[in-house]
């Protein structure tokens, strides 16, 4: 509950004993009240002061990827508006994509807070592609809440200020005598609801106003645990994903693909035969294969089984895990730092991280309705403007003739940064002249869909006595595809980046990687090879691998200097917030407790996205656990307990933050122990969830404790990816301690192929018919 007028001048002022931050807002001409933020002047922010004691700051400590994304979004923040509806609710078309990370919920909270409305009265939907937003419609880098925390609230606060003004006119008296609560404005003279004010408060012209944000002390929603706004729709089956949408005549459509990665169709022998199959409506040869449109997806699968075609070779012909590993090792940048002291000793290690799939549970999918003069697309898209531009170019249409609807996604993990399915659906719809509901088969999603590139990380650290003098890391990776709009942002923000002729990927690496430790002269560099693969950012991008390598070397340094791994980290950590999360997990997770032989703890930390995370795990590597039988699944060592602490500066929704950490922990466990793609002769062997071993119930820790630290900075950091790196690293460290051997190849079970690979011709398996034999 609070009362404040729109004020004439922006700035800071004390009011009623509380500091209210003031920003420029806009009222937009509309039938009911619509308000937006104006934040252009806030885009110049001083770089964080360097706080080096032993180590000079690494680039990511001064200006990181999140600063860049936030600054890129600011100039267009005034184009994002909150609307008050005639029923007293608020609507907000969010220019970001919900894919499970919980931003429809956290955004509803931000708006509800500033509007003094209950969260369930704020309807957050996803905006269509809006090219005028330029850089302000990219969902990635765990940046949504970092970038939008102020602009979204300012828009809501501007609306509330206007409602108060309108209420003062209606009720009589001064704005300062009014209070707003739960969508009703009250004075001693009476009360009036937002519903009654929605039209009265509307502006007949665009005008600038000053909006005042609540001080944190007055928050009643931000910082309190909030369940997801879409939870009820989810548990009742009502939540609609792309393939659940009913677009007239958009029939199920699938592609028969090549038996090699990115192979193209050369000739198809039996188009007429396929076209005549039951349920099949249309067949067309497109750039990626043979497209089939049918009454049901099952009949698309039947048709794919029947296609007889010749294929041109793919982009990874002849390549395998072994050839890529050689390619990576040959491309490693030299370790360059001279020996700091003739008496210094060194720790050296090299780690291999295999290809991994970021396939979400919802496979790549999109609906497209392409006509001669226009097109309409529906898909889960994190960079819809880029999708719109590219699809328009592909179809030969002007950009404004392509409408792109952003649909809530069934997971992303990096996948939905790209619009692969949308581009393909548009091509197929154009070729067939009909609307299509295109869905990738799981097997395609696993084998052809984008992957986290294979990489090698080489580390050398030197120490003398108790001092670490140097830390060098050379990360060599198969190229990561960032061609989803980040490039344009980087170009626009180039002046703010560290100097040097760095490639796009190197700049991403530079602006995200840091050791977080005072390890003297520190360099972490990326080099990339091989552009033949379908890659992309996978949740937390480079960090899980880079961090895993770092923390394993830290354990080695601790051992060589005779220190306890926890105490050693504590002594070298740069940031108080890092020490606090590490201390928290050490205390709550009982670091150093006695465990049976074969069971060990591992501890690790990770700083990123303006936040800090630490994980302490107990890993059971005893034979009876490792070899426990599970049908069509891998078991291996089991994490039996996780203690995790996270400090994001200001947790907007602690419940959602905890959920993101839980997901990150299960991802980290998968990266360390079980999940990878095997490349053999230009093709990935893993064809479904019975081959690709993401964490399952029988792998997940029976005991998990996630501690959300109290606010430290007053500003939210990123959450979606923060949980992965420390979890991965802590499991790897625990494995080293449990087995007595530092692991150097990940996941640790990659050397054993635990399944019979599915055929590549036909490219997708037929569905079984014996499902009734497995009821329970």
């Amino acid at each position, binding site marked *: 509950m609070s009362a404040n007028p729109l004020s004439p001048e922006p700035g800071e002022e004390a009011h009623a004993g509380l500091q209210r931050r003031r920003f420029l807002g806009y009222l937009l001409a509309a039938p009911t009240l619509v308000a937006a933020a104006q934040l252009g002047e806030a885009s110049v922010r001083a770089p964080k002061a360097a706080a080096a004691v032993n180590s000079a700051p690494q680039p990511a400590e001064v200006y990181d990827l999140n600063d860049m994304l936030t600054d890129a979004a600011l100039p267009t923040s005034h184009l994002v508006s909150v609307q008050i509806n005639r029923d007293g609710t608020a609507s907000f078309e969010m220019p970001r994509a919900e894919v499970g990370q919980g931003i429809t919920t956290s955004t509803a909270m931000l708006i509800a807070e500033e509007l003094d409305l209950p969260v369930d009265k704020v309807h957050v939907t996803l905006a269509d592609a809006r090219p005028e937003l330029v850089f302000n419609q990219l969902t990635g880098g765990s940046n949504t809440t970092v970038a939008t925390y102020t602009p979204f609230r300012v828009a809501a606060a501007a609306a509330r200020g206007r409602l108060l003004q309108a209420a003062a006119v209606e009720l009589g008296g001064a704005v300062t005598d009014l209070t707003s609560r739960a969508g009703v404005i009250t004075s001693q003279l009476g009360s009036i609801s937002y519903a009654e004010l929605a039209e009265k408060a509307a502006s007949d012209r665009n005008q600038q106003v000053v909006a005042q944000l609540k001080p944190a002390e007055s928050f009643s929603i931000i910082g309190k645990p909030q369940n997801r706004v879409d939870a009820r729709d989810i*548990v009742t089956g*009502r939540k609609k994903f792309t393939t659940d949408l009913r677009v007239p005549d958009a029939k199920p459509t699938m592609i028969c693909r090549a038996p090699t990665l990115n192979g193209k169709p050369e000739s198809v022998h039996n188009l007429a035969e396929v076209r005549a199959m039951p349920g099949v409506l249309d067949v067309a040869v497109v750039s990626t294969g043979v497209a089939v449109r049918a009454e049901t997806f099952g009949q698309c699968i039947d048709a794919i089984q029947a296609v007889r075609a010749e294929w041109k070779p793919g982009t990874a012909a002849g390549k395998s895990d072994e050839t890529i590993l050689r390619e990576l090792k040959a491309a490693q940048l030299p370790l360059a730092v001279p020996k700091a002291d003739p008496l210094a000793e060194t720790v050296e290690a090299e780690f291999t991280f295999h290809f991994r799939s970021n396939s979400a*549970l919802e496979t790549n999918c999109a609906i497209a309705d392409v006509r001669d003069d226009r097109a309409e697309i529906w898909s889960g898209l994190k960079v819809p403007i880029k999708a719109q531009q590219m699809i328009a170019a592909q179809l030969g249409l002007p950009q404004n003739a392509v409408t792109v609807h952003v649909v809530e996604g069934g997971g992303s993990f990096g996948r939905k940064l790209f619009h692969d399915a949308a581009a393909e659906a548009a091509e197929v719809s154009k070729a067939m002249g009909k609307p299509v509901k295109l869905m990738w088969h799981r097997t395609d999603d696993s084998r052809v869909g984008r992957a986290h590139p294979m990489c090698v990380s080489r580390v050398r650290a030197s120490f003398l006595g108790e001092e670490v003098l140097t830390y060098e890391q050379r990360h060599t990776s198969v190229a990561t595809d960032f061609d989803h709009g980040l490039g344009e942002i980087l170009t626009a923000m180039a002046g703010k980046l560290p100097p040097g002729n760095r490639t796009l990927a190197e700049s991403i690496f530079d602006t995200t990687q840091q050791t977080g430790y005072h390890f003297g002269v520190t360099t972490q560099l990326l080099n990339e090879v091989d552009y033949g693969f379908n890659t992309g950012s996978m949740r937390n991008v480079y960090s899980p691998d880079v961090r895993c390598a770092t923390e394993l070397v830290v354990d080695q340094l601790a051992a060589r200097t005779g220190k306890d791994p926890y105490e050693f980290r504590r002594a070298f950590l740069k940031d108080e917030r890092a020490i606090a999360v590490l201390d928290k997990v050490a205390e709550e997770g009982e670091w150093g407790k006695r465990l049976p032989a074969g069971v060990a703890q591992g501890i690790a930390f990770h700083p990123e996205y303006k936040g800090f995370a630490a994980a302490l795990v107990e890993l059971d590597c005893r034979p009876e656990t490792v070899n426990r039988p599970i049908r069509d699944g891998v078991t291996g060592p089991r994490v039996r307990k996780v203690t995790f602490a996270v400090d994001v500066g200001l947790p907007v929704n602690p419940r959602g933050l905890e959920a993101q950490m839980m997901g990150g922990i299960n991802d980290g466990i998968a990266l360390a122990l079980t999940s990878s793609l095997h490349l053999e002769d230009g093709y990935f062997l893993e064809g479904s969830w019975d081959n690709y071993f993401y964490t*399952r*119930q029988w792998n997940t820790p029976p005991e998990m404790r996630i501690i959300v630290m109290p606010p430290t900075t007053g500003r939210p950091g990123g959450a979606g990816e923060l949980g992965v790196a420390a979890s991965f690293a802590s499991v790897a460290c625990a494995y080293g301690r449990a087995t007595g051997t530092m692991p150097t190849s990940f996941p640790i079970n990659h050397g054993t192929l635990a399944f019979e690979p599915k055929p590549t011709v036909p490219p997708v*398996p037929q569905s*079984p018919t014996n*499902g009734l034999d497995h009821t329970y």
Partner: protein
Amino acid sequence: MPEHSFILNGEQVTVTAEDDVRVLWVLRDLLGVTGPKYGCGINVCKACTCHINGKAFNPCSVPISAIGEDDEITTIEGLAATSGRELHPMQEAWLEADVAQCGYCQPGQIMAAVAKVRQARAEGHEVGDADLDEIRNICRCGTYNRIREAIRAGAQNM
């Protein structure tokens, strides 16, 4: 084309489809019942889990011709009605624990959870860690730990 009749969420339905079309596509593509999700098509991800005559099954791997007139198929849309309440206790437990993230696998998870609790009881015990470890439904968001919490809580009200 053959006609197939069965009981779907308490109502007799009739649909025209080739005999070998899997039930998942009959539900989703022909009848517009989209709660059961596609995740693999080969009965390994379990995202499409529904009930047949009260037991969990995966319609991606059952041809429609295998379903008889008296067979009762329950999807997530019809689960609440089987409990005679606005929401099934398992759905309520899911809300209470705020299990879902993206939500794509969750209808299947809930249907599997209900069947798992019943299966454990039929075997004479309450659902425990060993039963939970047997659940094969994948959640790529990694909500497993809240799923475990919700199943234990939901079981108490079943």
